[in-house]
């Protein structure tokens, strides 16, 4: 680029023309409309492997991702949304597109839950991100009633491995589907919330929400 103090008029002219040429670009509104249209075409072509959208909640912005099987990942803002999407690209597919309409149902149910109007989720889930013992633990969690809690030790017993208390803690703390799969209902024996993907404060907010509803 030619500096503003460049004494050569021809170069100055070139720089001016170049600045002008930069305007040969779509505006932000146009780009947004183009994107929306691309998302519709890509959905019609069934070319999207992971759809996602974000929504606001009492525990901060949530990222919700789904495959054609079902909801595959719920993530908290504190996890860093870019990083979460990049790991999904590696674990599932890089064909990841923000396609809110594909997640209308999930978003509506989450909204109801956060308003205290929904006690369980009725959504297809894609559980491919949890395997082995973690999968066993997470599949047991919906048995813990809304508003109730269970200790890590009790969940370990229910999972058939009474000594695996620490492993239950890890399984819950790395739940790929927090909120929807209620790992927040698993707490320490002394009643304190314990580790949570969205942070301990978020876990307490969910427990309070369920206790009040």
């Amino acid at each position, binding site marked *: 680029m030619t500096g*503003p103090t460049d004494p050569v008029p021809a170069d100055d002219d070139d720089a001016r023309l170049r600045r002008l040429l930069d305007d040969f*670009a*779509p505006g932000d509104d146009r*780009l947004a409309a*183009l994107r929306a*249209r691309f998302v519709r*075409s*890509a959905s019609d072509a069934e*070319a999207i492997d992971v759809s996602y959208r974000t929504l606001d909640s009492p525990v901060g912005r949530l990222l919700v991702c789904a495959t054609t099987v079902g909801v595959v990942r719920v993530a908290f803002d504190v996890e860093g949304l870019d990083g979460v*999407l990049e790991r999904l690209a590696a674990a599932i597919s890089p064909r990841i597109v923000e396609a809110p309409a594909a997640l209308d149902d999930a978003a509506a149910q989450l909204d109801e839950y956060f308003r205290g109007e929904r006690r369980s989720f009725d959504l297809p889930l894609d559980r491919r991100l949890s395997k082995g013992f973690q999968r066993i633990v997470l599949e047991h969690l919906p048995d813990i009633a809304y508003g109730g809690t269970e200790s890590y030790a009790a969940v370990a017993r229910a999972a058939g491995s009474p000594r695996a208390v620490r492993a239950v803690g890890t399984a819950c703390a790395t739940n790929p589907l927090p909120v929807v799969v209620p790992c927040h209902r698993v707490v320490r024996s002394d009643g304190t919330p314990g580790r949570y993907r969205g942070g301990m404060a978020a876990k307490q907010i969910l427990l309070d929400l369920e206790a009040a509803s």
Partner: protein
Amino acid sequence: MLPFDRVVERHGTTVWRVCRAVLDEHDTDDAWSETFVAALIAYPSLPETADVGAWLVTIAHRKAIDVARARTRRPRPVEVVPESRPAPPADEALTRRDELVRALEQLPPGQRRAVVHHHLLGLSHAEAAELTGVSPAAARRASSDGIARLRSILTAADPSPPRRTP
């Protein structure tokens, strides 16, 4: 590999420029969307080391040519372009952009593409030549002729360009 969404974010403007260098505003929309759908489908098989921007430029140019060909075979019902200029937008930046787009549209297609490819996308004359299937010398000539023409059109439209003093 980046989530495809980030690719759209990063290269959306470039793809628009490649398409708009060949097509009008309306057809550019078609080509833009088709480019990214085709890219999305092929994306997972793209080698990690590939230059995603260059890859998209190639797809976009090909799609734009396809749309242009389809348009010649099946012209739009409204053939007569209204003569009157549209009401000038209130925003000064928009006015400037409009003038530029109109000026670019007055260039012969080869010159317009060459200017966009070389001066906006930063392709070398050799790369631009490969993309459009002309010789590097022709690409260079088209680019410099295009710039000269563009300058004269813009100067004619605005006889006393305000000289910005730093």
